[in-house]
């Protein structure tokens, strides 16, 4: 007999949601670190380095996330390392996040008025202090709406881990749907859970964007 969609099934979806959140957090943390490096290299002033990082970003922006995930997933398998499925997909999302966050923060760094950098140079600050104390704090403020926007994209993107077989929310939904034969209800609930996770972030991001626009309107 087939089970109906009840509390145990909902609990299974919630455990999937936990994996979705964990995957997002790991990818966002790793992607932020690597993305900061990408952004700094992209704006370092050395032509060759800037060109390479530009291609790096271009490759990730010009190819589907699903294929990036496939390449990382099967590429890691070829290295002979026996990696957990979670680690493999987390690496895939981290690499993707590094490119997208790198590009967002590149834009933000360049949006900080040039006079700030020039003034810092005139004061004799060296590169690390100039970036850490003058440019980056202002760039973070500018980049916040886009960064939150990417976070929402990342949460939605982790659903693609389902296609390579990792059990997060979307895959949990597929499993429950196959068990209960109630696909509309199950995917409705799954969509609702994603919505509950993403919508507050979207709202926060657009509110911050409106505020920032207002502040720049002088």
């Amino acid at each position: 007999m087939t089970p109906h969609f009840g509390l145990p099934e909902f609990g299974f979806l919630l455990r999937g949601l936990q994996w979705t959140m964990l995957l997002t957090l790991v990818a966002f943390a790793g992607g932020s670190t690597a993305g900061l490096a990408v952004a700094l290299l992209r704006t370092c002033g050395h032509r060759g380095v800037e060109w390479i990082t530009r291609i790096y970003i271009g490759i990730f922006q010009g190819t589907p996330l699903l294929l990036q995930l496939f390449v990382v997933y099967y590429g890691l398998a070829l290295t002979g390392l026996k990696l957990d499925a979670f680690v493999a997909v987390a690496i895939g999302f981290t690499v993707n996040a590094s490119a997208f966050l790198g590009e967002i923060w590149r834009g933000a760094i360049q949006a900080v008025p040039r006079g700030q950098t020039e003034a810092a140079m005139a004061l004799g600050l060296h590169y690390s202090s100039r970036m850490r104390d003058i440019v980056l704090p202002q760039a973070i403020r500018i980049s916040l709406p886009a960064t939150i926007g990417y976070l929402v994209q990342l949460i939605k993107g982790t659903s693609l881990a389902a296609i390579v077989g990792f059990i997060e929310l979307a895959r949990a939904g597929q499993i429950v749907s196959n068990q209960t034969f109630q696909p509309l209800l199950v995917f409705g609930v799954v969509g609702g859970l994603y919505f509950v996770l993403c919508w507050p972030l979207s709202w926060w991001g657009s509110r911050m964007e409106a505020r920032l626009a207002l502040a720049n309107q002088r």
Partner: protein
Amino acid sequence: MGYTLDFSVVWHAMPALLWGCMGTLGLALAGMTLAMIIGVAGVAARDSKAAWLRALVIGFVETVRNTPFLVQIFFLFFALPLIGLKLNPTATAIIALGVNGGAYAIEIIRGGVQSIHKGQVEAGYALGLHKGQVFRFIVLKPALRAIYPSLTGQFIMLTLTSSICSAVSAYELTSVAQRIESDTFRSFEVYFFVTFLYLAISWLLMLGFAIVSHRFFSYPTR
């Protein structure tokens, strides 16, 4: 370890892969067309006098933008037959892409319409242009110009998103790749190459869009 990369499988499968590219482009084009129709209708409904219609459009846009495409396409895959639409996977994929892209198109087109100041239209009439001319030169062309970058960016995004339609086995590049992979077990080689096919597609699209923009939209605005 004894694994050696063998890209000859990709070479042998080239015709199928190139047909897959055409499938992807066709899927994206059909999806984008539907998205534009939904977008224009949505903008009209978004600013209508009926509050329930406005709420419906806002709800639609927020729902689509805050849920994954994969879940949307699964939902539609099972929901469409219930409302009497028994479609093949490719047609289902086109509808899913259209619905998804439509939500983003509503926001983009709305921004374009709002970018035209009322004074511009009045100035057009004052200069003696008739209604058709005002719509064509004062409203349509500047509005298109304003939304062109985001609209074409959305089109490229839609093209990349269409790879997810392989999950319902619609005919496009990724599902072709999956078939080749299951025949040859050369997962990495196939997906690595196909990733670059997608890159080529999006670069060609970007180039094409840049040429069109240069031809039609490069005039001074102030």
